[in-house]
């Protein structure tokens, strides 16, 4: 590939050509990646902006919650926590059509492209979509910011610029990283039908967690001087505990999936659980990757309900004025709303992941239907693929959340835990099944006999 002019332009041209000839699934990938990037940029921008505010600054929204540096740091922490499901969602989006893109890039390599050229194309595929999302989010955020805040300072603008540029760059890096195996050994991708299963809950997710864990202490403590704010350790500890327990639940879930699969496969009486269990046994870390964000959200939500209960009990027992109670309850409600948003994003990630695993297996599924396997059996197997590994994992996550809640309760001396917190895990489970079920209409389209025709 001899380049006329700058080498980057030939890759951009190639990326554009690839896009023009792409099918519906590619467009979905780009749209979803853009949306995810916009969300990530939005949350990060909000966090950065809030972090750059110094001292007390009266803001009319949200019951004055943003005015006080102490509570502001809580909001920042919440925004950062919201980044976890968004980044997991982005991870899902980069995996859409991964097998197909792998083969495409392998083809480029075999046609003579150098490894760096192919890396650039891969980076562009993801990076440009993230750039689009980032631009949209930044424009919107800046407009809102200028209406609310009359004097944003230099730090704010620096932070905004950093986020606006950082998100697409990270996206591009993730895109190039995800396809690193193709770059080094194109034949490996071209020959094998299934890519080798990755171990562990996904590089992107782990990177996101480490990033957050590193940044969070600074964000939480950043808005004030030392000693001003009483017990900042508690939110931070809660934050870290939630993350740690979430990661632990993910890892444990992945490690036990193979055992669960083997157990169910041995005892399965009918076709659908057999298929689902064997699939689980074959690739135990795939569901862990898809469910990672959900598990973290479940831990957080269960912990939140316990903490809220304890907090409110503590509030009512103290002598506070009515206005103060409203202040705190708004904060709590805001956190609850944020958790619901996080759940929604995580559920979308699950839906995307389920749809993607369906379309990757199109030809096999079409052949099964052609051989006479009823569609209901395949639908049930698909739902079971989500349901089987998720049940023990959510149980663990719920238990983890209760542990955090209990720890917080012991801090303040109240013993009671709300029974509603126990409902979180089953409620999340039910909504996950619903989210997975949204992929079922796609099953009908995937098994059309047209899929049988291509080698």
């Amino acid at each position: 590939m001899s380049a006329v002019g700058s080498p980057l332009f030939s890759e951009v041209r190639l990326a554009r050509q690839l896009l023009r000839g792409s099918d519906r699934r590619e467009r979905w990938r780009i749209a979803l990646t853009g949306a995810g990037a916009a969300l990530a940029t939005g949350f990060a921008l909000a966090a950065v902006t809030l972090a750059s505010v110094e001292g007390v600054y009266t803001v009319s929204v949200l019951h004055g919650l943003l005015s006080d540096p102490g509570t502001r740091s809580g909001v920042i922490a919440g925004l950062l926590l919201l980044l976890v499901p968004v980044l997991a969602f982005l991870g899902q989006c980069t995996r859409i059509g991964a097998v197909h893109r792998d083969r495409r890039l392998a083809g480029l390599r075999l046609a003579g492209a150098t490894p760096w050229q192919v890396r650039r194309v891969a980076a562009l595929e993801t990076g440009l979509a993230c750039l689009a999302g980032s631009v949209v989010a930044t424009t919107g955020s800046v407009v809102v910011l200028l209406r609310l805040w009359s004097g944003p300072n230099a730090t704010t603008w620096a932070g905004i610029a950093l986020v606006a540029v950082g998100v697409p760059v990270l996206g591009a890096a993730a895109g190039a990283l995800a396809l690193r195996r193709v770059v080094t050994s194109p034949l490996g991708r071209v020959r094998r039908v299934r890519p080798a299963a990755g171990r562990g809950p996904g590089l992107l997710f782990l990177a996101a967690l480490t990033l957050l864990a590193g940044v969070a202490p600074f964000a939480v403590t950043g808005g004030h001087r030392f000693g001003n704010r009483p017990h900042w350790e508690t939110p931070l500890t809660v934050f870290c505990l939630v993350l740690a327990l979430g990661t632990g639940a993910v890892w444990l879930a992945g490690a036990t999936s193979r055992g669960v699969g083997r157990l169910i496969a041995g005892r399965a009486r009918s076709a659908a659980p057999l298929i689902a269990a064997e699939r689980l046994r074959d690739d135990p870390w795939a569901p862990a990757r898809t469910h990672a964000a959900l598990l973290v959200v479940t831990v957080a939500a269960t912990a939140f309900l316990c903490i809220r209960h304890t907090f409110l009990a503590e509030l009512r027992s103290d002598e506070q004025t009515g206005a103060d109670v409203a202040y705190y309850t708004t904060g709590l409600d805001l956190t609850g709303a944020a958790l619901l948003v996080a759940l929604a994003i995580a559920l979308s990630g699950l839906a995307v992941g389920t749809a993607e695993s369906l379309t990757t297996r199109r030809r096999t599924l079409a052949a099964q239907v052609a051989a006479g396997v009823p569609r209901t059996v395949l639908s049930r197997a698909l739902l079971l693929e989500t349901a089987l590994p998720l049940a023990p994992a959510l149980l663990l996550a719920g238990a983890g959340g209760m542990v955090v809640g209990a720890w917080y309760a012991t801090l303040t001396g109240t013993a009671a835990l709300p029974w509603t917190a126990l409902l979180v895990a089953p409620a999340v489970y039910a909504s996950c099944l619903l989210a997975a079920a949204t992929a079922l209409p796609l099953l009908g389209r995937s098994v059309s006999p047209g899929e049988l025709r291509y080698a």
Partner: protein
Amino acid sequence: MTNGETRGPLLAATGLVKAHGRTQALRGADVELRAGEILAVTGPSGSGKSTLLHCLAGIVRPDAGSVTYDQQRLDRLPEKRRSELRRTDFGVVFQFGQLIPELTALDNVALPLMLSGADRAEARARAGEWLERFEASGQAERRPGEMSGGQAQRAALARALVTGPKVVFADEPTGALDSLASEQLMAALAQTARESGTAVLLVTHDAQVAAYADREVEVRDGAVAALEVTA
């Protein structure tokens, strides 16, 4: 094989028309399959052979024309009923893709029996017999990805035959195999079909594979021409 001739063809299609998007795959194809006979369908690639097979097996509804199986109109049946028919009366062998990659060969072959309600242990036992018959019992606990192409296709054949179907539809079954594996597969298919009186519709572009059939028809530009009729 003789009672098939007195009762009429087991599977017959007349005037089949089918388009895929803008390409016309079949333009008025007629074909007949008698009970117990092996029919080869040959023709250049892209001529509509696979589409013909899909219409005859009830996998796809033709745009026009009729498909009659055992005196009932196959193309008029709802998908659920056609799917059931494909499970009990038909067997299919494709070039690739029909084994579930996560299940072992034994479970794959036992699957049609399990779907029809058989007990899992019994289904596995019968599947084991079929695998042994095709000399693939050493692969019983392996997954399709761990077997050679020939072994996987023999397992696929076992799966197609395990329910005792009346018709087996084979679409380029040897397409991805080397000559020795092709030989073994075709020998297994032909021998079992003759022993059990199963009819076989064999789509292939390989003359040596088509030579296993009793009769051959050619599909050219979406229409069927009989090349040869032998007793």
